[in-house]
């Protein structure tokens, strides 16, 4: 295929603005799939993605399209993950393209992720084609959104397509815009090979299927390739294109094209997104720019509710890791929770997705500890350590300076909620940077905030203070020195390691009190009184008591209904079996989970 007739593009959007639906319509319109086959959205093929309406992993599909100029075109749609946690993956997907469709909901306008994604696309030098969606809805305001795109992002939106992906209105204009506005790739098919890995996927028959954009050169089956970040070599088994319904084998793939490589690669962790594939013989001089390893930012302990299922949990994590190189885990032991894993995630959404997949796809009941970040500690002995588990936080007298990760956040909200959100950010130790009016009714706020505060139910609090309207985006902005303390919780005099927090000194008292109260409400009475204490070192800063159980009896057993009594006891026993014994105290898994969410907005 002549490069002049290839268009490589992504679709970017804020969550729920209709990215997947538009992708479906494009495939349908160009006859890549029929309507009947389109019953399910193709690009999102995990259940969870469908439910949440977000795309977790990138996929790509090759579309043949006859333009009105009479020529045949190949349109490669490279799908991108739609969330801030996957920013790096988004940027690699964008790097594989020359253009991007920026989908904006005509009833909502620009949101935090619209902006974040648009900026990413600008950084990648992409031609951005705005697409205004959902014009079938009564509350659509196409002109307002057009102006907003021009004013806020600074790209021309005057004649951009206004569509309804849902009902299939004006999809032809989108396809025309792709051909006419997005530039063709300009690689050199005879230059040394350079392919950008933008995704990979494990298949039990083929091994890892590596999704690539060929930038320069040509690759054939049987040739030996080298991954430039690791210098690992593989013999190519197969190359080809990505069709809507699977892989289409080809003799070769060359500059400008999007396709796949199989080479008997065993795990996706060998094929890192952003890495450059070249020939082992006659390699490229330089790899493509921008490769970095996806580093976890958020950590949490994951334990099976039923300790006997530790091995099942390990198997499940291994299976998920096959297709998710960003997920890290290592065994961890907690006195309170037994054997489990310390897992690292790109962000909060990534963490939630993994937890949900473990529970749904692998049928596991989990106990998870509060999310934590990585702290950098300079010790008095000159050593510097990184701590991702609060339990391992060193004693205060051995710490010279503690540093915590901070993030730049962008929050877009209707103006009426600005006050409440500013209070929230202030409360979460945010430093105000600036505030911009997007239009008369919406504002973009910038704060620098400790990540520690974001991972702790910030998103829920933001949503509840804005009736669900505010949107959030954040990116890591380095480490800052901070006044942190380790907060322990004791039940009946014993530290419960799974509840240990790292918290800013100023917030220690409030948080200690709240969690102690929550624990009190969530620990059922036992035959003795249970003191709950929150302590910094040996200093107790909050205290609650669970009173002793006085009554737990079925006093009346009517007319010889022994069955009812048995059922009641059996149910009680079942609950008891799920409990964790901490020293002499029994605690339900729910108690651990309850302290993870402290909704501190006014009710």
């Amino acid at each position, binding site marked *: 295929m002549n490069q002049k007739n290839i268009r490589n593009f992504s679709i970017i959007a804020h969550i729920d603005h209709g990215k997947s639906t538009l992708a479906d319509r494009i495939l349908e319109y160009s006859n890549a799939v029929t309507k009947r086959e389109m019953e399910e959205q193709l690009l999102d093929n995990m259940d969870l993605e469908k439910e949440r309406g977000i795309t977790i992993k990138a996929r790509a599909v090759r579309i043949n399209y006859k333009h009105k100029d009479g020529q045949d075109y190949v349109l490669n749609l490279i799908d991108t993950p739609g969330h801030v946690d996957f920013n790096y993956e988004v940027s690699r997907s964008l790097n594989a393209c020359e253009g991007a469709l920026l989908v904006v909901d005509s009833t909502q306008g620009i949101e935090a992720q619209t902006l974040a994604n648009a900026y990413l696309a600008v950084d990648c030098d992409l031609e951005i084609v705005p697409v205004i969606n959902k014009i079938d809805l009564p509350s659509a305001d196409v002109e307002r959104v057009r102006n907003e795109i021009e004013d806020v992002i600074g790209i021309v939106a005057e004649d951009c397509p206004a569509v309804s992906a849902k009902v299939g209105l004006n999809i032809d204009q989108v396809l025309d815009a792709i051909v006419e506005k997005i530039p063709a790739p300009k690689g050199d098919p005879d230059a040394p090979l350079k392919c950008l890995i933008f995704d990979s996927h494990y298949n039990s028959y083929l091994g890892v299927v590596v999704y690539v954009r060929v930038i320069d050169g040509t690759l054939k089956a049987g040739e030996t390739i080298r991954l430039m970040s690791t210098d690992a070599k593989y013999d190519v088994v197969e190359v080809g294109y990505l069709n809507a319904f699977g892989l289409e084998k080809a003799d070769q793939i060359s500059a400008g094209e999007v396709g796949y490589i199989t080479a008997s690669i065993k795990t996706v962790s060998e094929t890192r997104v952003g890495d450059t594939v070249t020939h082992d013989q006659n390699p490229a001089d330089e790899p493509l720019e921008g490769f970095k390893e996806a580093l976890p930012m958020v950590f949490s302990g994951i334990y099976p509710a039923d300790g006997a299922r530790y091995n099942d949990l390990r198997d499940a994590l291994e299976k998920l890791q096959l297709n998710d190189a960003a997920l890290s885990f290592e065994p961890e032991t907690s006195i309170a929770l037994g054997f489990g894993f310390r897992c690292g995630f790109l962000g909060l959404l990534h963490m939630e997705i993994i937890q949900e997949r473990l529970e749904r796809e692998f049928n596991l009941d989990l106990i998870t500890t509060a999310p934590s970040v990585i702290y950098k500690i300079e010790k008095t002995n000159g050593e510097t350590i990184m701590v991702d588990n609060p339990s391992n936080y060193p004693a205060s007298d051995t710490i010279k300076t503690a540093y915590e990760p901070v993030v730049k956040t962008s929050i877009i909200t209707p103006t009426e909620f600005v006050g409440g959100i500013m209070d929230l950010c202030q409360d979460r130790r945010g430093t105000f940077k600036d505030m911009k009016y997007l239009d008369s009714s919406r504002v973009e706020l910038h704060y620098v905030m400790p990540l520690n505060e974001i991972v702790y139910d910030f998103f829920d609090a933001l949503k509840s203070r804005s009736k669900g309207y505010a949107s959030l985006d954040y990116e890591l902005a380095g480490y800052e020195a901070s006044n942190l303390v380790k907060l322990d919780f004791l039940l009946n005099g014993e530290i419960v390691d799974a509840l240990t927090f790292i918290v800013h000194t100023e917030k220690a008292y409030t948080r200690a009190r709240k969690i102690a109260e929550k624990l009190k409400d969530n620990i059922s*009475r*036992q*035959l003795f009184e249970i003191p709950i204490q929150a302590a910094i070192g040996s200093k107790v800063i909050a205290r609650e008591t669970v*009173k002793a*159980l*006085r*009554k*737990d*009896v*079925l*006093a*009346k*057993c*009517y*007319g*010889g*209904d*022994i*069955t009812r*009594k*048995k059922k*009641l*006891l*059996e149910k*009680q*026993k*079942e609950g*008891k*079996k799920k409990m964790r014994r901490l020293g002499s105290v029994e605690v339900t898994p729910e108690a651990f989970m309850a302290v993870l969410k402290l909704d501190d907005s006014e009710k």
Partner: protein
Amino acid sequence: MKKLGLYIHIPFCKKKCNYCDFYSCTSIKGLREYISAICTQIEREAPLYREYLFDTIFIGGGTPSLLESNDFSLLVATIKSNLNLTQGAEFSIEANPGTITKEKLTCYKENGVNRLSIGLQSTNNEELKLLGRIHSYDTFLKNYQLARDCGFNNINIDVMYSLPNQKTNDFLETLKRVIALNPEHISSYCLKIEENTPFGKMEYLPLPDEDEEYNMYISMCELLTKNSYDQYEISNFSKKGYNCRHNLKYWLSEDYIGIGPSAHSYFDGKRYSYIESTEQYIKQIKENQIPNKIYEQTEENTHSSPQMSKMDEYVMLKMRLSSGVNREEFESKFGEALEVAYPKITSFIQSEYIVYENGAYSFTPKGFFVSNYILTEILKF
């Protein structure tokens, strides 16, 4: 011959009490038809019980005292002519003070009823009204005296505690008045709010807290014991020799059959109950069918966990009683030492939830009141 208890359920009430979630109908139109259905079932099933001797009969409800004398006589006649009764069998009937008459009492007496169980619940008229009872304390007093006059010398009085707004002293007041009447037996139940009852649907009900309930229970046990009422079960007290033998069958794993919708049976090693529909019960009897039964799910017929074994069930039932689980009896029944099968049982002695006396482990009053908790600790299921 093997012994058997007979329970007859009369699922009819003038009015449902605000706390009650047991099966009963408030329209008494079908009562006569119902009695004839019961009689038919007894006649039809009599051959099954030919090898048994009935040593207890308990007519419960609902409100059995709603029955007119001729219906009651018919029922008793059917029982007597179809089933083998022991000499001196215990024969109880439950009576609501609001439905007792001299005529009915005489009829009971003539038909051989030798134990009367009267539902008083409280001696405080405001509490009675709150509970939705149809009688006052005075009505009760009058009818209690009437029963004595008719020659009933084994009377139980039902009371309740942990009522809305009730304080320990309020309840002790009820108890003291009841004790002054000198009944042979007192049943005292803790009010439990059930979902599908008027109480369960109320948004706000000022119930005593757990500590107050505990005080009521412990003070009650002390007061009744002091007045020579022996606590023989969690909620039951009696003068010497006046235990309710029928109710004891439930806890001693002895056989009993229950007749009527929602009545429970333990017969031939199986537990079952008839479904809760008087209409359907009558219809099925008329059509010569066996009324629908629900069998208890056991280890043999399900695989859901956790499930009590026969051994667990034995211990659980025995621990309902103050006599508790006897070591020797247990060992000869199961071939295993009690402390080996249930090692945790001894760990509650020091804290005085359980005592070991006369070769048996049993709950103290304080232990009774948290017996569900302790049983889930001790039992193996």
